[in-house]
Every structure is written in C-alpha cells, then in structure tokens.
C-alpha cells in the first residue's frame, strides 16, 4: 500500500518483539488481500468480477461492508468506487512507479462507476459480494485504518500499551506508563519534516488525509490522490490536511477524507453528525481550524472559525 508502518509498544521486550512479528504478519496478509496494485490480490479478483457474485474472505466481506456503511452514512462523500477516476488522474500505478517514471496519461476511459457503489449487494450466508457491473473499488485508505486497528489489537495482547500507525492512520491501545495521553505530532502539510503542534490523545484512532503527500503531475497539471466523488476529479479544497480523532481507525480515516474534500463550507455540518469525532484542519498558511472540541487535544492555540 506504499505506506510506512510504525509500531510502538511497552512491556516485556521478548513478548513485545513477538507482538511486532504477529502484527507485521497481519499487515502483510492484509496488503496481499486489499492491494489494488497486486494482480492476484483478492481485491483485484473482486474488481475483475464486478457484476458477478464473488465469495470473499471474512475480512474482505467485513471491510467492503464497512465501506458501504460509510458511503451510505456520508451520502456518497466517501466513495471507494472512485478507482476509475483515480486512474484517469494518472494514479494507475504505485506511487513508487509514479515517482520513478511519472503518472499515466490523462483519460476518461476508466472513470465509470463512481457513485454506483451503493448498489453493491451482499449475501451474508455465503459471504459473497456483487459489485455493480463496471464498478471497481480502491480500499487503500480505509484498509490502512482497518489494518492499523487490527494490528494494534494483536500487539496489545503482547504489551501493556501500544500504537500502530499505517501511513498516517494510527490506532493506540492503552496509555504509556505514567502518562495520561499519547503524544502525536501533527505534521505540517507544507513540510513533513516539521510539526505544527503535538496532539494529546487517549486510546483510539487518529487519521490524517492530506493533498500534499501523494502528488504528481499529469499533462502539466498538478494532481493528488483525493478524488471528489461529486466531480470525479482531484478535490479542490482550501485545506491541505484534515486530521480526525475517533474511536475507530476506519471512522477517522473516512471522515478525514470526507472533511478535507468538503472543505470549510461543509465540514462542520458533516462532522456534527458524528458526536464521536473531532477534526483539526490545516490551511495553506498552516492555520489550524477545527471542531469546537478540538482544543482539548491541542497544546497550542489555534484559530476556530
């Protein structure tokens, strides 16, 4: 999934080391299952068979069903079936390949299907899924959160407190010894080597979506990987990044993406529907904006609209 995985844990070193191994195994299995860049991944098979019933693993069924629930809850603001649009924008190969050889050419051949994801059908007794014909999904973001949380729960069985971060999606179990919160540095989206502040968060999830990380040029135009399902194009937002604190990693991941795409005009309204999330957005001048409860997690003053 072209993402850095970071694990941190406290406890008996031998047990923690074993926990790292088990959590790593889970992530590797997850990547082989959910990656769209692997031809033989379970997701690639499901995408190739769109329009047909496909029996899938429990994990795939669970994650697609969760994605469906979020797509419904956000009225399509979150839509994993934007894969065609993502490929049209040039993201038809891994970021490593794009950085090495450039993005794919601009096209509209593949941008069918986004917006139709809610027509996906599920058959629980057989653990089968039927994507609408022509619809293909990208689980990159939500899969990262899903794996981070599961890996953290595995690691928690071998440690007294732990956290797993998968490409910006973080899930923490317990608290560091003698501390009342986890310190999570909020990166400056203009320069990832810098931090804007340190968040103080309890057990649970923190996820950030940014338009400055996965960027490339296509036919002379700047592109990024966050597709606005309403337009099928890379989102144009006044914010550079949105960080969400939530009880679960998939919730944090999905809402970080939705709120970034929604921007200042709609973010507060969307966030207000979920009382269990807090968001902090960063604009082009590195000013922080956020929901009314965001101050509780900040070390420094920030501006609230």
């Amino acid at each position: 999934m072209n993402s850095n995985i970071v694990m941190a844990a406290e406890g008996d070193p031998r047990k923690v080391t074993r926990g790292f191994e088990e959590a790593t195994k889970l992530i590797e299995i997850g990547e082989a299952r959910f990656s769209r860049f692997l031809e033989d991944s379970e997701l690639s098979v499901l995408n190739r068979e769109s329009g047909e019933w496909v029996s899938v693993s429990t994990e795939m069924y669970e994650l697609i069903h969760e994605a469906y629930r979020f797509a419904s809850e956000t009225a399509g603001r979150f839509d994993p079936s934007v894969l065609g649009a993502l490929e049209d924008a040039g993201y038809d190969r891994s970021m490593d390949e794009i950085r090495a050889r450039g993005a794919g050419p601009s096209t509209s051949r593949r941008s069918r299907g986004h917006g139709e994801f809610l027509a996906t059908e599920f058959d629980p007794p057989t653990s089968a899924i039927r994507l609408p014909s022509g619809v293909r999904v990208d689980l990159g973001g939500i899969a990262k959160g899903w794996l981070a949380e599961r890996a953290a729960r595995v690691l928690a069985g071998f440690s007294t407190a732990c956290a797993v971060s998968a490409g910006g999606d973080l899930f923490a179990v317990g608290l560091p010894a003698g501390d009342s919160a986890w310190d999570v540095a909020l990166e400056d989206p203009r320069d990832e080597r810098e931090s804007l502040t340190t968040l103080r968060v309890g057990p649970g999830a923190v996820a950030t979506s940014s338009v400055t990380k996965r960027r490339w040029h296509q036919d002379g135009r700047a592109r990024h990987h966050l597709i606005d399902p309403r337009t099928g194009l890379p989102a144009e937002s006044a914010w550079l990044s949105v960080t969400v604190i939530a009880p679960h990693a998939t919730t944090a991941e999905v809402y970080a993406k939705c709120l970034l795409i929604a921007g200042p005009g709609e973010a507060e309204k969307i966030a207000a529907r979920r009382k269990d999330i807090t968001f902090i957005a960063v604009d082009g001048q590195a000013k922080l904006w956020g929901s009314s409860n965001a101050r509780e997690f900040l070390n420094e003053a920030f501006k609230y609209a």
Partner: protein
Amino acid sequence: MKSLLYSLRVLIAAGSLGGFFGGWALFAHSGKPAAAVPEPPAQVVPAPSQSQDLSPLSLPQLQPVQPLQPLPSFSSGPRMRLRTGGS
C-alpha cells in the same frame, strides 16, 4: 618544753576545726548561685484592626488566555512519539 609543744598542736588542731566548721556554716547560709533563666517573651501587641476601614480588593480584570499548556508528564522509559500527517 614538751607541754609547750603539746599545747601548740592542740591549738593548731582546734584552729583548723574551727575554720572548717565556720566556713561550712558560712556557705550553708549563703544564697544559691544564679541559674540561666530564659527571658520572658516580649509581649505581642496586636496591631489595631483596620478591616472595617478598607474596601475589599477588587479582582484584576480577566484577560482571555491561550489554552493552558499541559504539565509535562514523566514516564520510566523513553517517551513514544508518534506522528500523523497522511500518506
């Protein structure tokens, strides 16, 4: 001559005994030596109360402040610092 010497010894002995008992009696009836006695504490004179004459202190006008910095925390091992910034 012998009687003169005898008389002289008796006189010296009697004088010694008389001096001894005379000194005893003198010391027995003299005053005791002075002891180190702490000085009595100085008497505290309460200051005259003025509370009835003063108006209550007014609180300073509160200024809006930035969110409080959390107190530094301590742990036994190196702190685990995590980052979030998207990918």
